[in-house]
């Protein structure tokens, strides 16, 4: 048996071992990579962001899946919830699957841990598991409170603060459905034509091809495709919604006219193309806040009483001011206070693991895709050389 015949008859267990290693190693050793964002993801992000800070706008997230598709869909759900909590967008959640109910709780709890001010019934509301999807989809077009009646905790919807200004799809103007199969079907067929509801989906990568016709026709305003879509959304949240300007005082939440000042910054294509965002999207652990001299002056001006402490922590490297947060002792932390400590931590641009899961997964997917391509090429090479030899010997 020559090498090409051996290649053709390679035991599949060897392939399994290579696949396992190709996935496990990049998951254990993350590296920085850039996930280029695509229009379907950007459109969804912009639509959600346009609701920021508005009392008369909300989004609905439909968790139409069970635990099997969570590795692909859960990071999308977490990224969108994080976006909403960062930018003060009202969120409603529901599921048509009994098995989807714990996923909603898990997603909300995962994100909420980092947002102590976010409250159920005020900033978000979970409808929980609801049977009879068709009836619900149509009923909410007339009146959400009458159709859903209570939330997952059994509270009357009409008594909840979040319902102020929210009646039907005119206000809850975007539904995002996450599914591993027929995502968005009912919303596109019934709610969009009848009530003008904007619909978007988050689907597993294998289902994306089925959704492209709706995307091109404009029936879907956006789509997150598998882990790649989730990674793109995570990046957008890091660059825009979770961005903190070192010179801005985030304790001021209203402007002179009483309008809310939102944290983060609005979407901008030119920002995405700027080299400076590289430091915002690193997925390796970051412990150093890197500021330009101007940013440092503006930041320290916000905390004049701690200027001495800041000066003792800073280091000048290549014209940039570096503050290593691991150098902050418990005494220093007490002295500077939690607000300043948290803001300094934010400025390191370190992203928590749960907010970069998709991007770490994309690294593994990169290696897995390359490996599958190598497998295809090797398999074909062996096949054709063997075929050529057989033909020559006949």
């Amino acid at each position, binding site marked *: 048996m020559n090498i090409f015949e051996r290649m053709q008859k*390679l035991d*599949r267990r060897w*392939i*399994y071992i*290579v*696949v*396992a290693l190709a*996935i496990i190693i990049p998951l254990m050793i993350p590296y920085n*990579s*850039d*996930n*280029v964002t*695509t229009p379907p993801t950007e459109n969804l992000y912009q639509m959600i962001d346009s609701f920021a800070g508005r009392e008369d706008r909300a989004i609905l997230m439909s968790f139409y899946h*069970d*635990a*099997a*598709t*969570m*590795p692909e869909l859960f990071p999308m759900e977490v990224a969108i919830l994080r976006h909403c909590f960062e930018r003060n967008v009202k969120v409603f959640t529901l599921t048509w699957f*009994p098995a989807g*109910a*714990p996923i909603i*709780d*898990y997603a909300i*709890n995962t994100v909420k841990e980092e947002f102590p001010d976010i409250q159920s019934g005020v900033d978000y509301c979970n409808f929980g598991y609801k*049977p*009879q999807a068709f*009836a619900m989809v*149509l*009923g909410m077009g*007339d009146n959400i409170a009458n*159709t859903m009646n209570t939330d997952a905790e059994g509270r009357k919807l009409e008594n909840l603060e979040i319902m102020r200004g929210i009646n039907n799809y005119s206000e809850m103007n975007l539904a995002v459905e996450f599914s591993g199969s027929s995502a968005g079907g009912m919303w596109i067929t019934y709610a969009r034509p009848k009530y003008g509801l904007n619909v978007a989906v988050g689907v597993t*990568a294998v289902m994306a*091809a*089925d959704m*492209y*016709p709706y995307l*091109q026709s404009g029936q879907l305003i956006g789509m997150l495709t598998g882990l*790649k879509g989730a990674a793109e959304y995570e990046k957008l949240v890091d660059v825009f919604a979770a961005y903190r300007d070192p010179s801005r005082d985030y304790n001021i939440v209203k402007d002179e006219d009483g309008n809310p000042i939102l944290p983060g910054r609005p979407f901008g294509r030119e920002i995405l193309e700027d080299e400076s965002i590289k430091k915002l999207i690193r997925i390796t652990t970051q412990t150093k806040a890197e500021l330009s001299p101007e940013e440092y002056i503006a930041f320290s001006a916000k905390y004049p009483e701690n200027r001495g402490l800041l000066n003792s922590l800073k280091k000048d490297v290549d014209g940039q001011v570096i503050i290593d947060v691991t150098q902050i002792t418990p005494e220093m932390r007490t002295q500077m206070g939690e607000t300043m400590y948290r803001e300094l931590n934010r400025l390191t641009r370190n992203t928590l693991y749960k907010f970069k899961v998709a991007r770490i997964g*994309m*690294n593994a*997917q*990169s*290696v*897995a*895709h*390359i*490996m*599958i*391509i190598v*497998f*295809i090429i*090797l*398999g*074909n090479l062996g*096949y*054709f050389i063997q075929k050529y030899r057989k033909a020559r010997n006949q």
Partner: protein
Amino acid sequence: MKKTIPLLIVIVGGLIWVVWAFSPHYVLQEVFYNQFYLPWAYASASFAMLLGVLSLTMMHSNKIKMRAPKWQYSYFFFASFVITCLAGFIGGIQKGGLFMWMFENVQMPMSATMFSLLAFYMASAAYKAFRARSPEATVLLIAAIVVMLAQVPLGVKLSKHLPTISQWILDVPNLASKRGIMLGVGLGSVATSLKILLGIERSYLGGD
């Protein structure tokens, strides 16, 4: 009679929904839909759930009784069912309870593991079966490689044009075939629905 009554129920029920979909009349939208249909829909959903539980229980009890192949696994069904129900009913389904703990530490990893097996089968199939045996297979193979590369950060580093080419493949050839299939399915659904509404298609009643 055994077939006429169910047939009439289907025809009348189907026609009501057709009229409901096209008419904004108060009787249909408010009286029929909101006051009659919705309460019935909520009630029937609970019964559907009960029916599902009964059906599963009967199936697994029979398996154990008959000593059908792999009957031992049915005991796992009963054990999991009882434990999950008790955990939910007694401790609640909120974070910190046994139900959520089981969801996070048992159901989630097990389900994800099953789903992730796909990667191994795909890699094995790519190596063993994905051959450029014909011009059509070669086109498919090249398209697959381009789209796979364009999906990941490493591929974009190889060439900045890859995402554009990949998007073209998805938007043009992929969409053309998808639309063709969807139109076919749509027209087929309309034809079948009409045949059912007019009583021509009766195979769902069983028999001929």
